[in-house]
């Protein structure tokens, strides 16, 4: 519990963060930037898990545990994404989205 701060305010922050991530994901033209946006989205949701756990069900641990899982998955995902990006870069010398469109053909 944060003294004087209701759950609404925290959720507001995470919502804003989430949509900033979405915005970034949709507008950035670069794979790494998109990855960064995804991290933002993930973090927004992690915070939600944690906060709801803390505020609504303080005697439980599920939220926290899920947060850990999400962080772990995020780490794995990032590692894979990065490796793909690097591989892609080797192949086409670019990490711009528009250059990766060859994949759809």
């Amino acid at each position, binding site marked *: 519990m944060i003294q004087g701060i209701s759950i609404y305010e925290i959720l507001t922050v995470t919502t804003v963060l989430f949509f900033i991530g*979405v915005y970034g994901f*949709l*507008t950035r033209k670069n794979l790494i930037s998109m990855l960064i946006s995804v991290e933002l989205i993930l973090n927004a949701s992690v915070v939600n898990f944690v906060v709801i756990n803390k505020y609504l069900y303080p005697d439980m641990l599920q939220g926290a545990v899920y947060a850990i899982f999400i962080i772990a998955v995020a780490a794995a995902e990032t590692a894979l994404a990065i490796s793909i990006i690097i591989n892609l870069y080797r192949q086409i010398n670019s990490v711009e989205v528009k250059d990766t469109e060859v994949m759809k053909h």
Partner: protein
Amino acid sequence: MDISYIILIPIIPLVVFLLLGIFNQKIKPGISGYVGVFGLLASTTLSFYAAYQYFFVYGKVDGVFQTFSEKTVWMNFTDTLHIDMGILVDPISVMMLVVVSVVSLMVHMYSRGYMKGDEGYTKFFAFLSLFTFSMYGLVLATNLFQIYIFWELVGVSSYLLIGYYYTKTAAIAAAKKAFIVTRFADFGFLIGILIIGFYTGTFDFETLNNPEGSVILNWAATSFMGLSVITWALILIFIGGAGKSAMFPLHIWLPDAMEGPTPVSALIHAATMVVAGVFLVARLFPMFYFVEDGFALNIVAYVGAFSALFAAIIAITQTDIKRVLAFSTMSQLGYMMLALGVSGYEGHEGVGYMASMFHLFTHAMFKALLFLGAGSVIHAVHSNYLKDMGGLRKYMPITNITFLIAALAIAGVPPLAGFWSKDEILVAAFEHNKLIYYVGVFVAGLTAFYMFRIYFGIFWGKERTYDHKPKESPLSMTLPLIVLAFLSVTAGFIPFSEFVTADKAGFEAHLNYPLAAVATGVGLIGIVLAWIFYKNENSLSDRYAKAFGPLYKWASDKFYFDEIYMFVAKKILFKRVSEPIAKFDKKYVDGTMVGIGNKTVLTSKKIKGIQSGKVQDYAFAFIAGVVVLALVFIYLWPN
């Protein structure tokens, strides 16, 4: 009277046709000629036998010639309407049998000489047999539909025979024209038949023609645009007849039909097929006469009279002898129509009908003779044009004499055949309608004039230089000429009014001396004029032609009817209807269908852009969709 053997008369030519047609390649030409001639000889014998039996052995019962018929159902339309096939024996059909047989037999014999060496010899005889079969079927028809069936068959035989020289462009065009113009007329005929079938419930001649029958008594039952439907039907049927008989304005095919071999012209386009129209009107004469006081019959009379005059004027100016004869035929057919048109029904009233049939009979003889004679001449000089002929009387005595007889006959010089029949026609016209009578007399004069114009042109006048000396045709060709000449002289003495009349009762015909004198006088004037103009080569004719100026030009160009029809057919139907329709079909109808297809492809191409393969676009759609759905479910439909 037993009429069953009459069925053989048409069957024999049919069998000959099938034989010659199927084994076309295998039969030697000489044999095929004999097969044709002997087949027809059998038919002719039977025809004469039938005529003898009918008129003399069986004769009249209660003063009236009986009608015999035998028929079997060929196809059912409804419970009442059906097409029968059968034979109908009455005075005109027996008379027509004789006419067709005689002329056809002569033409068959003649063709053996005329067509000698032609590669399509067998084919020619096959077609002739087909035609003869169809013509027999036509004259023996028991009902309107049967007559229509054979009507079409003679049409197609005519087509095949006109187009016999199928490598000649003119012949192809002429054949096509003949078929299509008559087909157009048949369109009217068919509609007429349909009307009659619907309103009277029968196609059968005996029922239709019965003066006491319900058809004639109830003609006024339904009317359309001021006339009874039956009158309309008769007018339409007359259009069909006018097409076949080359009445104005459906005459344009006949002169062109002369592109066919000359025997064909003699048989089909002079003696038999073209009189089918006259025969048709005669066949339905009681209907024409009784329905609506003969309204339709008046039309027949005027059309006939006008055609007679019109054709005679054109005939004067033509230089192709076959065309002169063609217009002469048209003119004489007009005469026959005219006679039917002014005829009454009973007793001496029916003199027009009798005269028409009589003229049909005599005309068949002398016109066939004229054509065959012309064919003989053409055979000798290898040209159709007057300018290539002259002074042939020395080389071709038989042809000369027979042609002269025929010309005198058609000019109406007594006592040849044409005199008697023409006289009766003029009597009928005089009694009925003075205007038509005057036209008739004038045409008689014109006929004599143009006939002798070509006679003098061919056999007299200056000799031309010929490639090789013209010589008389072989016996196979001259024999028919002699036979026909004999008939042209004697046919007039047949007491026709005893046998062939509208009411089938017969009457005493008397020569009307004043009228006969007038007609003969006019004919002689025509001959004398022709003598003056054409006996020796002189410039008189040219000067007079100049004097008439544009009239002469119009007449020699056949009053531009060909051009008008060509304009309608080519410029209007072809260019303004057919071509736009074809384009319309390609562009709009097909275009619409193709357009629908193309639009689908186009739309799909556009929609395809949505499926871009870009994750961001999908994500955007996803987010936007979620937001919209959320909005919808939260605010629009909260529950």
